[in-house]
């Protein structure tokens, strides 16, 4: 009889727990504040974008978006727990509520935005799919890749672009599917495939980690649009606004020349937009449900977009990427944030 009793109890408990999980649908901001830290989905390790450094601290421009949101919410950019996600599980992890936001070189597409119950809130890196080959192959263009073996990360838009590109150009290829970036590096350097294809940024990041980076060339063809940006769950617009404007604050910070070094000086600026952004003119933080110094915290602790870019992936880093498309609109790029008013 005790056996049956315990069975009853465990059944009831399971039912209770499952309905409790289903019932927790308060606002994400309250949830994050209550927890005291932000759960942020990151890459499993992509140098310059999201990877732990030698000291085990996560770094990169994707990671900086997480830090910016933490700075906005808590006034402390370090209150983030990073959840490494593969390209395969990233959406499920976000949908299920295990993470509060996903900032992990993820391409914004219609079907992901609409069909998967996600909300992309902006673009923090304009990318495009490229091809990397060993320099010794003597290949100068992606149009010469007929018959090649191609290493590719599964579960990505890359996979479909690849199929489309080879089909459109009447070429054949052997796809060698791999699960993560590091597996791709291993298969590519072992010669299992001739070509490694992923977003160009990823290729630069991988190449920087090879023993002899100069032995590999990234071909000039960019075969797709890959706007990479942070995403949140669909249905909580307040939270989406916070993440969207945390990213925008970094971009506007660059536009206005506010850096982590001069936030305090800028507090007494004559430019009204600077004053609105830094909270010297109150009211804007409250609209988001945050304190008025939220953007000032982002800029002083994380820095503006340019600082983040130069620190992690710019020409002075091993990744060595030019600003290109990712320059501000007034510098010839397409980076453009809506006005802060």
């Amino acid at each position, binding site marked *: 009889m005790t056996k049956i009793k315990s069975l009853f109890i465990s059944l009831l408990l399971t039912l209770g727990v499952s309905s409790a999980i*289903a019932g927790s*649908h308060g606002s994400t901001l309250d949830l994050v504040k209550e927890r005291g830290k932000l759960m942020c989905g990151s890459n499993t390790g992509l140098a310059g974008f999201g990877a732990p450094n030698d000291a085990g601290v996560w770094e990169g421009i994707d990671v900086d978006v997480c830090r910016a949101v933490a700075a906005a919410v808590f006034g402390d950019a370090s209150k983030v727990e990073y959840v490494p996600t593969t390209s395969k599980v990233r959406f499920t992890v976000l949908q299920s509520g295990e993470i509060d936001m996903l900032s992990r070189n993820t391409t914004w597409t219609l079907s992901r935005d609409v069909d998967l119950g996600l909300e992309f809130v902006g673009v923090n890196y304009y990318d495009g799919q490229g091809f990397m080959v060993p320099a010794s192959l003597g290949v100068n263009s992606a149009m010469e890749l007929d018959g090649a*073996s191609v290493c590719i990360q599964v579960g990505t838009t890359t996979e479909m672009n690849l199929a489309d590109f080879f089909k459109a150009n009447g070429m054949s290829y052997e796809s060698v*599917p791999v699960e993560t970036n590091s597996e791709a590096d291993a298969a590519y350097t072992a010669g299992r495939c001739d070509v490694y294809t992923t977003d160009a940024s990823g290729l630069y990041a991988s190449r920087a980690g090879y023993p002899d980076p100069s032995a590999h060339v990234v071909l000039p063809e960019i075969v797709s649009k890959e706007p990479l940006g942070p995403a949140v769950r669909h249905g909580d617009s307040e939270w989406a606004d916070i993440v969207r404007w945390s990213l925008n604050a970094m971009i506007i910070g660059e536009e206005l020349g506010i850096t982590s070094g001069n936030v305090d000086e800028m507090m007494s600026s004559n430019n009204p937009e600077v004053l609105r952004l830094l909270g010297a003119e109150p009211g804007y933080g409250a609209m988001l449900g945050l304190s008025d110094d939220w953007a000032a915290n982002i800029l002083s602790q994380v820095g503006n977009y340019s600082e983040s870019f130069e620190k992690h992936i710019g020409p002075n880093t091993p990744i060595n990427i030019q600003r290109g498309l990712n320059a501000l609109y007034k510098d010839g790029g397409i980076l453009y944030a809506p006005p802060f008013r």
Partner: protein
Amino acid sequence: MQTNFLRKIIFDEKSRSLLIQTLVIGLFALFIYLIAQQTAYNLEKRGISSGFDFLNLSAGYDISIRLIPFTSEDTHFRAYFVGLLNTLMIAVCGCFLATIIGFLVGVIRLSSNWLFRNIAYVYVEFTRNVPVLLQIILYYSILLHLPKIKQAIEIFDGFFLTNRGFFSPSPIFKEGFSLVLWSFLIAIIASILIKKILKKKQEQTGQQYPIFLINSALIIFTPILVYYIMGRPLEFDAPVLKGFNFKGGMVIRPEFLGMLFGLSIYTAAFISETVRSGIIAVSKGQREASQALGLKNNLVMRLIVIPQALRVIIPPLTSQYLNLTKNSSLGIAIGYADLVHGFGGISLNQTGRAIEIMLMVMLTYLTISLTISLFMNIYNKSVQFKGNA
């Protein structure tokens, strides 16, 4: 009347246990129903679409390891079949190889040769106690360190070994080759008939015939004879290194080989133990009696020991086959395009239909496993004691 009914339920053991069992089943069904309903509700609330219409959308990705033609324009449903066939291929090849290795090692472990016996012992203990995933990755990384494509080793004429797979000439069947196949089939049927007739004769006269020799000759030489009569209607297309890869010929990819070695070597260790226990289970008296009757050693094994050992071997062997088939889902670790990797991985990601796809994949594995069990049970029945022994 009512108290009588209640009393019966509480104090009669049979009806009481019936009531409790019904209650538990009912609760379980309710539990499943609640979970399903809650899931549907949560999906809808979060704006995640569901349903099976995605199966007719074009997949948009390519699969290199495939048994049927597949392009990126084919549907997810076809991708499902490509994956299913790859799963079945690795399961069948793996079970076959594992059985052969397992039987050999099982017999060797009982051999009187100290060296062989202990090599087999070390093999069994090592492979049994290391996770199969690690073994698969080990074999795969060894295969990846074979020579690169430009430095391919030519083993025989037209056979190349590289880290992109094992390339061999592919046969091209010309007109008249079907006759060769037919003659092969007829030879097999004829040999079965011959075996029956000669067995009957042996029972009547006691005279033994070299059945095995006659039949092998029949099966081997008939097709060869027809092949030459038809003017050799078979050509080979040898692989040639052209550009990035070999063109023409056939290829076995390292992903498949890694899976095959990993799964079959691992499972063979378990099978060998099963075989060993089966042989030991046949009582010593059986062997001694047949030797006393003057049977040769190989006949003792074939006619007396193995048939009785099979009774013990088959049931655990079935579960080893099931294990191997289920373990084939580990192909995801090295990019072998099985059901879990292709349909259950890539399609899942492109469409986001996690629940639908996982249900399909799970039901498929269930069906495969139950089918294996069914056939092994039929086979098991055929080797059990017959009559009232």
